[in-house]
């Protein structure tokens, strides 16, 4: 078994109102970061796990996202995997 660290980035689904992102956007504008075009605020979940292969680690992380970490109605997610030596 190898050890992996999985980072799951969860963001509000495209096209869905993201009030938190909007508020941060407005705050950045008021600080005169006028070049800001869009802000989305999400969540980062870092999971350490053991798996025989990186593919298996990804499959397990995907299952975690579908069952708990992300709500498929409102959120999208991306998975990054690194092995821990």
């Amino acid at each position, binding site marked *: 078994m190898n050890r992996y660290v999985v980072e799951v980035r969860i963001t*509000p689904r495209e096209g*869905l*109102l993201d*009030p*938190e992102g909007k*508020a941060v956007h407005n705050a950045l504008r008021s600080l005169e970061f006028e070049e800001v075009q869009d802000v989305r605020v999400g969540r980062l979940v870092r999971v350490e796990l053991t798996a025989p292969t990186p593919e298996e680690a990804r499959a397990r992380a995907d299952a975690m996202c579908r069952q*708990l*970490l992300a*709500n498929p*109605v*409102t959120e999208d997610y991306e998975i990054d995997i690194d092995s821990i030596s």
Partner: protein
Amino acid sequence: MTSTASVELRVAVVTFPGSNCDHDCYRAAKDVLGAEAGLVGAGEAHRAAVRSHGKVEAYFVWHRERDLRSPDVVILPGGFSYGDYLRAGAIARFSPIMEAVRRFADEGGLVLGTCNGFQVLCEAGLLPGALVRNRSLRFISRWVRLRVENAATPFTSAYRQGQVLRMPIAHGEGNYVADEATLDRLEADGRIVFRYCDADGNVTDAANPNGSMHGIAGIVNEAGNVLGLMPHPERAVEALLGSTDGAGVFESMRAHVLAGLSAAANAGRATRATEPAGRP
């Protein structure tokens, strides 16, 4: 109907770690619905129902339990189950008791989820859609008005179609979202039970406190026996609380259960409709 004199309505209130409206729900069921004179301004129909049908037995069920103890109605109360970590309701749905709640709902039992209970029902997939952060990003605690969009459900038969109710809300994540197909189905099937409205009953954006799509405050599942709503009917059952408009939800549920029991009695069956066959 002569055989129902000893019947009691059994109401199970599920307590999750972080629930904080469970005692309000208990009181609304046991002390208000179950008391003949409990409802200030209660009609003769209510008093007659209490006289002929006896008491209401309400009890708490801790989330670690696996048995609902043969209820007629299950209430998932408001609060902040598991601190609302990850997403509101996301972790509560894995509580051991939720398996029994799902079975009870599948068998047609009445399940009422208010506020956090609504969020749990959505996360558990017992109701479609999701509740996300209020568009204002603020926690909102105030009185709102709701329009009864469907008075033909087991939860709303005590109301008139289109009746405007006054109830409190207290939530940070009450902004109902669902995809277009789901919204179309909810609309077409009359499953949107309550919408936010103004004092005259107009559903407007200004009257929508949290940004919910289609002004949705409450919906039922496809079978019509599971209701989720963000407002708190249990906090609007006594004049002292500022409104008695929420009492109709509890009265409707009782009427529905008693109608089912008397139908079962007339059919020669002694058990509750919601009890598994063969149970004593």
